[in-house]
Protein backbone atom coordinates (compact mmCIF):
# COMPACT_ATOMS: atom_id res chain seq x y z
CA UNK A 1 0.00 0.00 0.00
CA UNK A 2 2.84 2.37 0.86
CA UNK A 3 4.20 1.93 -2.68
CA UNK A 4 0.74 2.31 -4.18
CA UNK A 5 0.33 5.67 -2.47
CA UNK A 6 3.72 6.78 -3.79
CA UNK A 7 2.70 5.73 -7.29
CA UNK A 8 -0.49 7.77 -7.06
CA UNK A 9 1.44 10.79 -5.81
CA UNK A 10 3.93 10.44 -8.69
CA UNK A 11 1.05 10.36 -11.18
CA UNK A 12 -0.56 13.36 -9.52
CA UNK A 13 2.64 15.42 -9.52
CA UNK A 14 3.38 14.31 -13.07
CA UNK A 15 -0.02 15.38 -14.35
CA UNK A 16 0.34 18.81 -12.76
CA UNK A 17 3.85 19.27 -14.15
CA UNK A 18 2.79 18.04 -17.60
CA UNK A 19 -0.24 20.34 -17.85
CA UNK A 20 1.79 23.20 -16.40
CA UNK A 21 4.50 22.81 -18.99
CA UNK A 22 2.38 22.11 -22.06
CA UNK A 23 -0.70 24.21 -21.49
CA UNK A 24 -0.26 26.92 -18.89
CA UNK A 25 3.21 28.20 -19.76
CA UNK A 26 6.28 28.00 -17.56
CA UNK A 27 7.89 31.32 -18.35
CA UNK A 28 6.29 34.07 -20.43
CA UNK A 29 7.91 37.41 -21.33
CA UNK A 30 10.56 37.55 -18.64
CA UNK A 31 8.07 36.52 -15.92
CA UNK A 32 6.84 33.19 -14.60
CA UNK A 33 3.64 31.95 -16.24
CA UNK A 34 0.66 30.12 -14.78
CA UNK A 35 2.50 26.84 -15.14
CA UNK A 36 5.58 27.91 -13.17
CA UNK A 37 4.56 26.63 -9.76
CA UNK A 38 2.80 23.45 -10.99
CA UNK A 39 5.88 22.44 -12.99
CA UNK A 40 8.46 23.04 -10.26
CA UNK A 41 6.45 21.58 -7.40
CA UNK A 42 5.02 18.81 -9.58
CA UNK A 43 8.49 17.59 -10.51
CA UNK A 44 9.76 17.91 -6.93
CA UNK A 45 6.75 15.94 -5.72
CA UNK A 46 7.48 13.20 -8.26
CA UNK A 47 11.11 12.96 -7.18
CA UNK A 48 10.32 12.78 -3.47
CA UNK A 49 7.55 10.27 -4.03
CA UNK A 50 9.92 8.16 -6.14
CA UNK A 51 12.23 7.92 -3.12
CA UNK A 52 9.23 6.45 -1.33
CA UNK A 53 9.16 3.53 -3.76
CA UNK A 54 12.39 2.19 -2.24
CA UNK A 55 10.73 1.00 0.92
CA UNK A 56 7.34 -0.53 1.55
CA UNK A 57 6.56 0.52 5.09
CA UNK A 58 3.74 -1.13 6.99
CA UNK A 59 0.73 1.10 7.66
CA UNK A 60 0.45 3.00 10.93
CA UNK A 61 -3.00 1.53 11.43
CA UNK A 62 -4.74 -1.24 9.56
CA UNK A 63 -7.40 -0.40 7.05
CA UNK A 64 -10.35 -2.72 7.20
CA UNK A 65 -13.56 -2.96 5.26
CA UNK A 66 -15.53 -1.60 8.17
CA UNK A 67 -13.61 1.69 7.96
CA UNK A 68 -15.59 2.48 4.84
CA UNK A 69 -19.01 2.09 6.39
CA UNK A 70 -19.19 5.90 6.90
CA UNK A 71 -18.36 6.40 3.22
CA UNK A 72 -21.28 4.17 2.22
CA UNK A 73 -23.44 6.04 4.69
CA UNK A 74 -22.31 9.39 3.25
CA UNK A 75 -22.96 8.30 -0.33
CA UNK A 76 -26.41 7.03 0.59
CA UNK A 77 -27.03 10.38 2.27
CA UNK A 78 -26.01 12.30 -0.86
CA UNK A 79 -28.39 10.12 -2.89
CA UNK A 80 -31.12 10.63 -0.34
CA UNK A 81 -30.70 14.42 -0.34
CA UNK A 82 -31.74 14.63 -3.98
CA UNK A 83 -34.97 12.82 -3.12
CA UNK A 84 -35.89 13.81 0.42
CA UNK A 85 -33.91 17.01 0.92
CA UNK A 86 -31.25 17.74 3.52
CA UNK A 87 -33.23 17.70 6.75
CA UNK A 88 -35.09 14.42 6.22
CA UNK A 89 -31.88 12.79 4.97
CA UNK A 90 -30.04 13.80 8.12
CA UNK A 91 -32.81 12.31 10.22
CA UNK A 92 -32.89 9.09 8.20
CA UNK A 93 -29.12 8.78 8.30
CA UNK A 94 -28.89 9.24 12.06
CA UNK A 95 -31.73 6.90 12.94
CA UNK A 96 -30.71 4.17 10.51
CA UNK A 97 -27.06 4.42 11.54
CA UNK A 98 -27.86 4.09 15.21
CA UNK A 99 -30.23 1.19 14.53
CA UNK A 100 -28.12 -0.80 12.08
CA UNK A 101 -24.50 -0.02 12.97
CA UNK A 102 -24.78 0.64 16.68
CA UNK A 103 -27.76 -1.64 17.35
CA UNK A 104 -29.62 0.94 19.43
CA UNK A 105 -33.25 0.38 20.34
CA UNK A 106 -35.76 2.08 18.05
CA UNK A 107 -36.82 4.41 20.86
CA UNK A 108 -33.31 5.62 21.68
CA UNK A 109 -32.33 5.90 18.04
CA UNK A 110 -35.35 7.96 17.10
CA UNK A 111 -35.12 10.28 20.11
CA UNK A 112 -31.45 10.94 19.44
CA UNK A 113 -31.97 11.30 15.72
CA UNK A 114 -34.90 13.65 16.09
CA UNK A 115 -33.28 15.88 18.68
CA UNK A 116 -30.01 16.22 16.75
CA UNK A 117 -31.87 16.95 13.53
CA UNK A 118 -33.99 19.51 15.33
CA UNK A 119 -30.91 21.32 16.63
CA UNK A 120 -29.33 21.38 13.18
CA UNK A 121 -32.60 22.57 11.66
CA UNK A 122 -32.92 25.37 14.20
CA UNK A 123 -29.36 26.61 13.90
CA UNK A 124 -28.72 26.27 10.18
CA UNK A 125 -32.13 26.62 8.65
CA UNK A 126 -34.00 28.94 11.00
CA UNK A 127 -31.24 31.20 12.28
CA UNK A 128 -28.52 31.13 9.66
CA UNK A 129 -30.98 30.76 6.77
CA UNK A 130 -28.80 28.30 4.90
CA UNK A 131 -30.86 27.31 1.85
CA UNK A 132 -30.73 23.53 2.30
CA UNK A 133 -31.76 21.44 -0.68
CA UNK A 134 -35.39 20.46 -0.32
CA UNK A 135 -36.84 17.17 -1.44
CA UNK A 136 -40.11 15.88 -2.83
CA UNK A 137 -41.86 16.66 0.44
CA UNK A 138 -40.83 20.26 0.00
CA UNK A 139 -39.02 20.44 3.32
Amino acid at each position, binding site marked *: MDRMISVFIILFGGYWAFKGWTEYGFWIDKTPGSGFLPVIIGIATMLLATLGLLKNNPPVFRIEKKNFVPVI*GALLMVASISVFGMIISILL*FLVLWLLIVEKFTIKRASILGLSTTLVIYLIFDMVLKVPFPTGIIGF
Partner: protein
Amino acid sequence: MVEIFGMLLNGFSTALSFENILAAMIGAAVGIIIGAIPGLGSVTGVALLLPLTFSLEPVTGIIMLAGIYYGGMYGGSYSAILINIPGDSPAVTTALDGYAMAKKGKAGKALFAANLSSFIGGTIGIIILTFMGPLLAQIGLAFGPAEIAVLILLALCSVGWLLGDSPRKGIVTTMIGILLATIGVDLVSGSERFTFGSENLLSGLSFIPLVIGMFGFSQILEMISEKIKTDDIGDKVTLKESLLDGQELKSVIPASIRSGVLGNFVGILPGAGATTGSLLSYIFEKRVGKNKKEMGKGAIEGVSASESANNAAAVGSFAPLLSLGIPGSGTSAVLLGGLMMWGLQPGPLLFQQNPEFVWGLISSMYVGNLITVIAAILIIPFLMKIIRIPTSIMIPVITVICFVGAYSFQNSMFDVWIMIATGIIAFYLKSHDYPIAPLLLSFVLTPRLEQAARQALNLSDGSLGIFASSPISITLLLLIVLFIMSPLVMKLFKKKQAVKEDPIAS
Protein backbone atom coordinates in the same frame (compact mmCIF):
# COMPACT_ATOMS: atom_id res chain seq x y z
CA MET B 1 1.92 59.03 25.59
CA VAL B 2 -0.13 61.01 28.10
CA GLU B 3 -2.34 62.03 25.25
CA ILE B 4 -2.98 58.40 24.36
CA PHE B 5 -3.96 57.61 27.96
CA GLY B 6 -6.35 60.53 27.98
CA MET B 7 -7.92 59.41 24.74
CA LEU B 8 -8.13 55.88 26.01
CA LEU B 9 -9.80 56.98 29.22
CA ASN B 10 -12.29 58.95 27.18
CA GLY B 11 -12.78 55.85 25.11
CA PHE B 12 -13.53 53.78 28.17
CA SER B 13 -16.33 56.10 29.11
CA THR B 14 -17.87 55.24 25.75
CA ALA B 15 -17.04 51.56 25.89
CA LEU B 16 -18.38 51.05 29.38
CA SER B 17 -21.87 52.29 28.64
CA PHE B 18 -24.60 49.72 29.19
CA GLU B 19 -25.53 49.21 25.56
CA ASN B 20 -21.93 48.92 24.45
CA ILE B 21 -21.15 46.26 27.03
CA LEU B 22 -24.30 44.45 25.97
CA ALA B 23 -23.26 44.75 22.33
CA ALA B 24 -19.84 43.31 23.15
CA MET B 25 -21.47 40.43 25.02
CA ILE B 26 -23.86 39.58 22.20
CA GLY B 27 -21.05 39.84 19.67
CA ALA B 28 -18.75 37.62 21.74
CA ALA B 29 -21.44 34.97 22.28
CA VAL B 30 -22.45 34.87 18.62
CA GLY B 31 -18.78 34.83 17.60
CA ILE B 32 -17.92 31.93 19.90
CA ILE B 33 -20.87 29.88 18.66
CA ILE B 34 -20.41 30.60 14.97
CA GLY B 35 -16.66 30.12 15.25
CA ALA B 36 -17.19 26.74 16.89
CA ILE B 37 -19.45 25.46 14.12
CA PRO B 38 -17.31 23.85 11.42
CA GLY B 39 -17.87 25.55 8.10
CA LEU B 40 -18.76 28.92 9.54
CA GLY B 41 -16.25 31.54 10.51
CA SER B 42 -16.22 35.09 11.74
CA VAL B 43 -16.70 36.37 8.18
CA THR B 44 -20.10 34.68 8.12
CA GLY B 45 -20.88 35.99 11.59
CA VAL B 46 -19.92 39.55 10.79
CA ALA B 47 -21.76 39.48 7.47
CA LEU B 48 -24.80 37.98 9.20
CA LEU B 49 -25.07 40.60 11.93
CA LEU B 50 -23.96 43.56 9.81
CA PRO B 51 -27.50 44.43 8.71
CA LEU B 52 -28.73 44.15 12.29
CA THR B 53 -26.14 46.61 13.52
CA PHE B 54 -27.23 49.35 11.14
CA SER B 55 -30.00 50.34 13.48
CA LEU B 56 -27.42 50.93 16.21
CA GLU B 57 -25.02 53.78 16.88
CA PRO B 58 -21.87 53.30 14.75
CA VAL B 59 -19.66 52.74 17.76
CA THR B 60 -22.08 50.23 19.30
CA GLY B 61 -22.39 48.45 15.98
CA ILE B 62 -18.67 48.17 15.39
CA ILE B 63 -18.14 47.02 18.98
CA MET B 64 -20.60 44.20 18.38
CA LEU B 65 -18.93 43.25 15.10
CA ALA B 66 -15.48 43.37 16.64
CA GLY B 67 -16.84 41.10 19.40
CA ILE B 68 -17.91 38.57 16.78
CA TYR B 69 -14.50 38.78 15.21
CA TYR B 70 -12.53 37.82 18.28
CA GLY B 71 -15.27 35.60 19.67
CA GLY B 72 -14.94 33.65 16.43
CA MET B 73 -11.24 33.24 17.03
CA TYR B 74 -11.95 31.74 20.47
CA GLY B 75 -14.67 29.49 19.08
CA GLY B 76 -12.54 28.23 16.20
CA SER B 77 -10.34 26.39 18.66
CA TYR B 78 -13.18 24.46 20.32
CA SER B 79 -14.12 22.24 17.40
CA ALA B 80 -10.40 21.84 16.68
CA ILE B 81 -9.76 20.54 20.19
CA LEU B 82 -12.93 18.55 20.72
CA ILE B 83 -13.60 16.86 17.39
CA ASN B 84 -10.39 17.62 15.45
CA ILE B 85 -12.17 19.86 12.94
CA PRO B 86 -10.51 23.29 12.91
CA GLY B 87 -13.22 25.93 12.62
CA ASP B 88 -10.99 28.15 10.51
CA SER B 89 -7.54 28.01 8.95
CA PRO B 90 -5.55 29.55 11.83
CA ALA B 91 -6.94 26.81 14.11
CA VAL B 92 -5.24 24.04 12.10
CA THR B 93 -2.16 24.31 14.30
CA THR B 94 -4.40 24.38 17.39
CA ALA B 95 -5.87 21.03 16.38
CA LEU B 96 -2.43 19.41 16.24
CA ASP B 97 -1.82 19.58 19.97
CA GLY B 98 -5.32 20.34 21.15
CA TYR B 99 -6.90 17.17 19.81
CA ALA B 100 -3.94 15.11 20.94
CA MET B 101 -4.49 16.51 24.45
CA ALA B 102 -8.20 15.74 24.27
CA LYS B 103 -7.39 12.15 23.32
CA LYS B 104 -5.25 11.90 26.43
CA GLY B 105 -8.21 13.04 28.50
CA LYS B 106 -6.91 16.57 28.91
CA ALA B 107 -9.54 18.33 26.81
CA GLY B 108 -10.43 20.62 29.69
CA LYS B 109 -6.90 21.80 30.09
CA ALA B 110 -6.53 22.26 26.35
CA LEU B 111 -9.69 24.38 26.22
CA PHE B 112 -8.60 26.40 29.21
CA ALA B 113 -5.13 26.95 27.78
CA ALA B 114 -6.69 27.96 24.46
CA ASN B 115 -8.92 30.52 26.16
CA LEU B 116 -6.21 31.89 28.37
CA SER B 117 -3.76 32.18 25.48
CA SER B 118 -6.38 33.75 23.25
CA PHE B 119 -6.92 36.32 25.97
CA ILE B 120 -3.21 36.99 26.40
CA GLY B 121 -2.65 37.19 22.65
CA GLY B 122 -5.66 39.43 22.18
CA THR B 123 -4.58 41.73 24.99
CA ILE B 124 -1.04 42.01 23.66
CA GLY B 125 -2.49 42.82 20.26
CA ILE B 126 -4.73 45.52 21.70
CA ILE B 127 -1.94 47.09 23.74
CA ILE B 128 0.28 47.23 20.66
CA LEU B 129 -2.62 48.65 18.64
CA THR B 130 -3.21 51.33 21.27
CA PHE B 131 0.31 52.63 21.40
CA MET B 132 1.89 51.74 18.09
CA GLY B 133 -0.94 50.82 15.74
CA PRO B 134 -0.55 53.59 13.16
CA LEU B 135 3.23 53.41 13.37
CA LEU B 136 3.33 49.66 12.80
CA ALA B 137 0.81 49.91 10.00
CA GLN B 138 3.16 52.35 8.33
CA ILE B 139 6.07 49.97 8.85
CA GLY B 140 3.93 47.16 7.45
CA LEU B 141 3.76 49.04 4.16
CA ALA B 142 7.46 48.35 3.70
CA PHE B 143 6.44 44.75 3.07
CA GLY B 144 5.95 44.73 -0.66
CA PRO B 145 5.36 41.73 -2.92
CA ALA B 146 8.95 40.51 -2.59
CA GLU B 147 9.00 40.72 1.20
CA ILE B 148 5.59 39.05 1.56
CA ALA B 149 6.70 36.28 -0.79
CA VAL B 150 9.81 35.59 1.25
CA LEU B 151 7.86 35.76 4.52
CA ILE B 152 5.35 33.19 3.34
CA LEU B 153 8.14 31.09 1.89
CA LEU B 154 9.68 31.09 5.34
CA ALA B 155 6.43 29.77 6.80
CA LEU B 156 6.04 27.26 4.00
CA CYS B 157 9.60 25.96 4.25
CA SER B 158 9.12 25.03 7.84
CA VAL B 159 5.72 23.40 7.36
CA GLY B 160 7.10 20.08 6.16
CA TRP B 161 9.22 19.58 9.25
CA LEU B 162 6.25 20.30 11.41
CA LEU B 163 4.89 16.87 11.95
CA GLY B 164 5.26 13.17 11.65
CA ASP B 165 8.37 11.07 11.87
CA SER B 166 9.31 11.24 8.22
CA PRO B 167 10.34 14.68 6.96
CA ARG B 168 10.08 13.34 3.41
CA LYS B 169 6.41 12.55 3.87
CA GLY B 170 5.83 15.93 5.49
CA ILE B 171 7.37 17.68 2.51
CA VAL B 172 5.38 15.53 0.08
CA THR B 173 2.08 16.50 1.69
CA THR B 174 3.19 20.14 1.79
CA MET B 175 3.73 19.97 -1.94
CA ILE B 176 0.42 18.22 -2.58
CA GLY B 177 -1.18 21.16 -0.78
CA ILE B 178 0.67 23.59 -3.04
CA LEU B 179 -0.45 21.73 -6.16
CA LEU B 180 -4.08 21.60 -5.02
CA ALA B 181 -3.95 25.34 -4.37
CA THR B 182 -3.19 26.02 -8.04
CA ILE B 183 -6.66 24.80 -9.07
CA GLY B 184 -8.90 27.60 -10.33
CA VAL B 185 -8.54 30.84 -12.25
CA ASP B 186 -5.01 32.18 -12.05
CA LEU B 187 -5.29 35.73 -10.83
CA VAL B 188 -2.15 36.98 -12.52
CA SER B 189 -2.84 35.73 -16.04
CA GLY B 190 -6.58 35.17 -15.82
CA SER B 191 -6.31 31.67 -17.28
CA GLU B 192 -8.01 28.59 -15.88
CA ARG B 193 -5.86 25.91 -14.32
CA PHE B 194 -6.82 22.30 -13.52
CA THR B 195 -10.53 23.06 -13.55
CA PHE B 196 -11.34 19.98 -15.63
CA GLY B 197 -14.05 22.04 -17.30
CA SER B 198 -16.01 22.43 -14.09
CA GLU B 199 -17.38 25.84 -13.17
CA ASN B 200 -17.33 24.74 -9.54
CA LEU B 201 -13.56 24.72 -9.71
CA LEU B 202 -13.20 28.19 -11.24
CA SER B 203 -12.58 29.74 -7.87
CA GLY B 204 -10.51 26.75 -6.79
CA LEU B 205 -11.07 24.22 -4.07
CA SER B 206 -12.36 25.81 -0.90
CA PHE B 207 -10.48 25.45 2.32
CA ILE B 208 -13.53 24.67 4.47
CA PRO B 209 -14.73 21.47 2.73
CA LEU B 210 -11.11 20.42 2.43
CA VAL B 211 -10.39 20.81 6.12
CA ILE B 212 -13.68 19.22 7.13
CA GLY B 213 -12.96 16.26 4.87
CA MET B 214 -9.29 15.82 5.65
CA PHE B 215 -9.55 16.35 9.39
CA GLY B 216 -13.16 15.57 10.27
CA PHE B 217 -14.36 12.93 7.86
CA SER B 218 -11.10 11.00 7.74
CA GLN B 219 -11.19 11.05 11.53
CA ILE B 220 -14.59 9.32 11.39
CA LEU B 221 -13.20 6.55 9.19
CA GLU B 222 -10.44 6.06 11.70
CA MET B 223 -12.71 6.17 14.73
CA ILE B 224 -14.68 3.17 13.47
CA SER B 225 -11.82 0.86 14.29
CA GLU B 226 -10.47 2.81 17.23
CA LYS B 227 -13.67 2.92 19.26
CA ILE B 228 -12.02 5.13 21.83
CA LYS B 229 -13.42 4.44 25.24
CA THR B 230 -14.40 8.02 25.85
CA ASP B 231 -16.87 6.94 28.51
CA ASP B 232 -14.07 6.41 31.00
CA ILE B 233 -12.21 9.63 30.52
CA GLY B 234 -13.39 12.87 31.85
CA ASP B 235 -16.40 11.62 33.72
CA LYS B 236 -15.34 13.63 36.71
CA VAL B 237 -13.76 16.51 34.87
CA THR B 238 -15.03 19.77 36.23
CA LEU B 239 -14.06 23.34 35.59
CA LYS B 240 -11.78 23.10 38.59
CA GLU B 241 -9.84 20.22 37.15
CA SER B 242 -9.42 21.86 33.82
CA LEU B 243 -7.73 24.80 35.51
CA LEU B 244 -4.03 24.87 34.87
CA ASP B 245 -1.55 24.21 37.66
CA GLY B 246 1.49 26.37 38.32
CA GLN B 247 3.73 24.23 36.14
CA GLU B 248 1.38 24.49 33.20
CA LEU B 249 0.93 28.22 33.64
CA LYS B 250 4.69 28.52 33.49
CA SER B 251 4.59 26.88 30.07
CA VAL B 252 1.51 28.67 28.79
CA ILE B 253 2.24 32.29 29.68
CA PRO B 254 5.70 32.75 28.12
CA ALA B 255 4.61 30.85 25.01
CA SER B 256 1.52 33.05 24.73
CA ILE B 257 3.47 36.27 25.11
CA ARG B 258 6.10 35.33 22.52
CA SER B 259 3.47 34.19 20.06
CA GLY B 260 1.20 37.15 20.75
CA VAL B 261 3.86 39.65 19.78
CA LEU B 262 4.90 37.73 16.67
CA GLY B 263 1.33 36.95 15.64
CA ASN B 264 0.29 40.56 16.05
CA PHE B 265 3.04 41.82 13.83
CA VAL B 266 2.27 39.31 11.10
CA GLY B 267 -1.41 40.29 11.37
CA ILE B 268 -0.53 43.92 10.66
CA LEU B 269 1.32 43.11 7.44
CA PRO B 270 -0.74 43.62 4.30
CA GLY B 271 -2.36 40.36 3.33
CA ALA B 272 -0.20 37.94 5.34
CA GLY B 273 -3.09 36.92 7.57
CA ALA B 274 -3.78 35.11 10.82
CA THR B 275 -2.87 31.70 9.40
CA THR B 276 0.67 32.80 8.58
CA GLY B 277 0.79 34.36 12.04
CA SER B 278 -0.26 31.30 13.98
CA LEU B 279 1.85 28.97 11.86
CA LEU B 280 5.00 31.06 12.26
CA SER B 281 4.43 31.37 16.01
CA TYR B 282 3.85 27.64 16.30
CA ILE B 283 7.06 26.90 14.45
CA PHE B 284 8.93 29.51 16.44
CA GLU B 285 7.72 27.86 19.63
CA LYS B 286 8.76 24.46 18.28
CA ARG B 287 12.24 25.86 17.72
CA VAL B 288 12.80 27.88 20.87
CA GLY B 289 10.27 26.54 23.38
CA LYS B 290 11.26 24.34 26.29
CA ASN B 291 8.91 21.57 25.32
CA LYS B 292 9.70 21.36 21.61
CA LYS B 293 9.88 17.57 21.46
CA GLU B 294 6.30 17.14 22.59
CA MET B 295 4.95 19.72 20.16
CA GLY B 296 2.47 18.04 17.85
CA LYS B 297 1.89 15.21 20.27
CA GLY B 298 -0.22 17.07 22.79
CA ALA B 299 1.94 19.85 24.16
CA ILE B 300 0.08 22.62 25.93
CA GLU B 301 2.53 25.14 24.46
CA GLY B 302 1.37 24.19 20.97
CA VAL B 303 -2.20 25.16 21.77
CA SER B 304 -1.02 28.36 23.44
CA ALA B 305 1.26 29.42 20.63
CA SER B 306 -1.25 29.10 17.86
CA GLU B 307 -4.24 30.47 19.79
CA SER B 308 -2.38 33.45 21.18
CA ALA B 309 -0.95 34.23 17.76
CA ASN B 310 -4.20 34.03 15.86
CA ASN B 311 -6.01 36.32 18.28
CA ALA B 312 -3.15 38.78 18.24
CA ALA B 313 -3.15 38.66 14.44
CA ALA B 314 -6.90 39.28 14.33
CA VAL B 315 -6.40 42.43 16.38
CA GLY B 316 -3.36 43.31 14.28
CA SER B 317 -5.44 43.59 11.13
CA PHE B 318 -7.29 46.50 12.76
CA ALA B 319 -4.16 48.66 12.62
CA PRO B 320 -3.98 49.09 8.83
CA LEU B 321 -7.79 49.17 8.68
CA LEU B 322 -8.15 52.06 11.13
CA SER B 323 -5.06 54.05 10.33
CA LEU B 324 -4.70 53.53 6.58
CA GLY B 325 -8.12 52.29 5.49
CA ILE B 326 -6.61 49.06 4.18
CA PRO B 327 -8.38 45.85 5.14
CA GLY B 328 -5.87 43.18 6.12
CA SER B 329 -8.24 40.20 6.21
CA GLY B 330 -11.58 38.99 4.92
CA THR B 331 -13.33 39.93 8.11
CA SER B 332 -11.81 43.36 8.35
CA ALA B 333 -12.86 43.89 4.73
CA VAL B 334 -16.45 43.30 5.83
CA LEU B 335 -15.90 45.67 8.74
CA LEU B 336 -14.57 48.27 6.33
CA GLY B 337 -17.77 47.94 4.32
CA GLY B 338 -19.68 48.47 7.54
CA LEU B 339 -17.70 51.53 8.55
CA MET B 340 -18.25 53.14 5.19
CA MET B 341 -21.96 52.59 5.46
CA TRP B 342 -22.02 54.38 8.75
CA GLY B 343 -20.48 57.29 6.93
CA LEU B 344 -17.02 56.78 8.38
CA GLN B 345 -14.09 56.86 6.02
CA PRO B 346 -11.39 54.66 7.50
CA GLY B 347 -8.12 56.17 6.49
CA PRO B 348 -5.32 58.38 7.65
CA LEU B 349 -7.75 61.00 8.93
CA LEU B 350 -10.03 58.74 10.96
CA PHE B 351 -7.99 59.17 14.15
CA GLN B 352 -8.26 62.96 13.84
CA GLN B 353 -11.79 63.28 12.50
CA ASN B 354 -13.52 60.67 14.63
CA PRO B 355 -11.40 60.24 17.76
CA GLU B 356 -14.39 59.22 19.93
CA PHE B 357 -15.14 56.46 17.49
CA VAL B 358 -11.61 55.12 17.19
CA TRP B 359 -10.81 55.31 20.87
CA GLY B 360 -14.22 53.99 21.81
CA LEU B 361 -13.55 51.00 19.59
CA ILE B 362 -10.05 50.42 20.94
CA SER B 363 -11.20 50.73 24.55
CA SER B 364 -14.07 48.40 23.85
CA MET B 365 -11.59 45.82 22.65
CA TYR B 366 -10.10 45.65 26.14
CA VAL B 367 -13.56 45.28 27.64
CA GLY B 368 -14.75 42.91 24.91
CA ASN B 369 -11.71 40.67 25.21
CA LEU B 370 -12.31 40.36 28.94
CA ILE B 371 -15.99 39.63 28.44
CA THR B 372 -15.18 37.06 25.77
CA VAL B 373 -12.67 35.18 27.90
CA ILE B 374 -15.11 35.02 30.82
CA ALA B 375 -17.87 33.74 28.56
CA ALA B 376 -15.46 31.28 26.98
CA ILE B 377 -14.27 29.88 30.30
CA LEU B 378 -17.83 29.49 31.57
CA ILE B 379 -18.65 27.43 28.49
CA ILE B 380 -15.90 24.89 29.21
CA PRO B 381 -17.93 22.63 31.56
CA PHE B 382 -20.67 22.40 28.93
CA LEU B 383 -18.16 21.67 26.20
CA MET B 384 -16.72 18.92 28.38
CA LYS B 385 -20.02 17.13 28.06
CA ILE B 386 -19.41 16.74 24.34
CA ILE B 387 -16.26 14.79 25.11
CA ARG B 388 -18.29 12.42 27.24
CA ILE B 389 -20.72 11.53 24.48
CA PRO B 390 -19.92 7.90 23.60
CA THR B 391 -18.15 7.24 20.29
CA SER B 392 -21.14 5.28 19.02
CA ILE B 393 -23.18 8.47 18.96
CA MET B 394 -20.31 10.81 18.09
CA ILE B 395 -19.59 9.02 14.81
CA PRO B 396 -22.96 9.57 13.09
CA VAL B 397 -23.35 13.04 14.61
CA ILE B 398 -19.92 14.22 13.45
CA THR B 399 -20.63 12.75 10.00
CA VAL B 400 -23.76 14.89 9.83
CA ILE B 401 -21.82 17.94 11.05
CA CYS B 402 -19.23 17.34 8.31
CA PHE B 403 -22.04 17.22 5.78
CA VAL B 404 -23.86 20.30 6.94
CA GLY B 405 -20.62 22.25 7.53
CA ALA B 406 -19.26 21.51 4.06
CA TYR B 407 -22.60 22.36 2.47
CA SER B 408 -23.29 25.59 4.36
CA PHE B 409 -19.99 27.21 3.50
CA GLN B 410 -21.18 28.06 -0.02
CA ASN B 411 -24.52 26.26 -0.13
CA SER B 412 -23.11 23.81 -2.59
CA MET B 413 -23.38 20.03 -2.89
CA PHE B 414 -20.15 20.09 -4.84
CA ASP B 415 -18.34 20.97 -1.63
CA VAL B 416 -19.93 17.94 0.02
CA TRP B 417 -18.44 15.73 -2.67
CA ILE B 418 -15.07 17.39 -2.17
CA MET B 419 -15.38 16.78 1.56
CA ILE B 420 -16.08 13.06 1.10
CA ALA B 421 -13.39 12.54 -1.55
CA THR B 422 -10.64 14.40 0.30
CA GLY B 423 -11.66 12.60 3.50
CA ILE B 424 -10.99 9.23 1.89
CA ILE B 425 -7.69 10.42 0.39
CA ALA B 426 -6.56 11.83 3.74
CA PHE B 427 -7.50 8.57 5.43
CA TYR B 428 -5.18 6.61 3.13
CA LEU B 429 -2.40 9.17 3.52
CA LYS B 430 -2.71 9.10 7.30
CA SER B 431 -2.63 5.32 7.35
CA HIS B 432 0.89 5.56 5.99
CA ASP B 433 2.08 8.32 8.25
CA TYR B 434 1.66 11.19 5.81
CA PRO B 435 0.81 14.21 8.00
CA ILE B 436 -2.26 16.16 6.85
CA ALA B 437 -1.71 19.51 8.59
CA PRO B 438 1.17 20.58 6.27
CA LEU B 439 -1.06 19.93 3.26
CA LEU B 440 -3.79 22.23 4.56
CA LEU B 441 -1.38 24.93 5.69
CA SER B 442 0.46 25.04 2.40
CA PHE B 443 -2.90 25.04 0.62
CA VAL B 444 -3.83 28.21 2.50
CA LEU B 445 -0.48 29.92 2.06
CA THR B 446 0.31 29.09 -1.57
CA PRO B 447 -2.04 31.50 -3.39
CA ARG B 448 -0.50 34.46 -1.55
CA LEU B 449 3.00 33.18 -2.13
CA GLU B 450 2.52 32.55 -5.82
CA GLN B 451 0.88 35.88 -6.41
CA ALA B 452 3.41 37.85 -4.42
CA ALA B 453 6.34 36.10 -6.07
CA ARG B 454 4.98 36.71 -9.54
CA GLN B 455 4.17 40.34 -8.72
CA ALA B 456 7.73 40.79 -7.52
CA LEU B 457 9.20 39.18 -10.64
CA ASN B 458 6.93 41.27 -12.82
CA LEU B 459 8.18 44.41 -11.07
CA SER B 460 11.81 43.37 -11.42
CA ASP B 461 11.45 42.26 -15.05
CA GLY B 462 12.20 38.69 -14.09
CA SER B 463 15.29 39.37 -12.03
CA LEU B 464 15.49 37.22 -8.88
CA GLY B 465 17.51 39.98 -7.22
CA ILE B 466 14.32 41.64 -6.00
CA PHE B 467 13.94 38.95 -3.35
CA ALA B 468 17.14 40.13 -1.73
CA SER B 469 16.83 43.84 -2.43
CA SER B 470 15.72 45.11 0.98
CA PRO B 471 17.03 44.56 4.51
CA ILE B 472 13.70 42.97 5.43
CA SER B 473 13.79 40.35 2.73
CA ILE B 474 17.48 39.61 3.31
CA THR B 475 16.78 39.02 7.00
CA LEU B 476 13.88 36.76 6.12
CA LEU B 477 16.01 34.84 3.61
CA LEU B 478 18.65 34.31 6.28
CA LEU B 479 15.93 33.02 8.58
CA ILE B 480 14.84 30.54 5.92
CA VAL B 481 18.39 29.24 5.59
CA LEU B 482 18.60 29.03 9.36
CA PHE B 483 15.30 27.19 9.59
CA ILE B 484 16.25 24.63 6.98
CA MET B 485 19.79 24.23 8.20
CA SER B 486 19.14 24.18 11.91
CA PRO B 487 17.70 20.65 12.09
CA LEU B 488 20.78 19.38 10.25
CA VAL B 489 23.17 21.33 12.44
CA MET B 490 21.32 20.16 15.53
CA LYS B 491 21.67 16.57 14.39
CA LEU B 492 25.38 16.94 13.83
CA PHE B 493 25.75 18.70 17.13
CA LYS B 494 23.86 15.98 18.94
CA LYS B 495 25.96 13.27 17.33
CA LYS B 496 29.13 14.98 18.49
CA GLN B 497 27.70 15.34 21.95
CA ALA B 498 26.61 11.73 21.97
CA VAL B 499 30.15 10.68 21.08
CA LYS B 500 31.54 12.85 23.84
CA GLU B 501 29.10 11.60 26.41
CA ASP B 502 29.38 7.98 25.46
CA PRO B 503 32.61 7.16 27.30
CA ILE B 504 31.30 8.75 30.46
CA ALA B 505 28.09 6.84 30.25
CA SER B 506 29.84 3.52 29.77
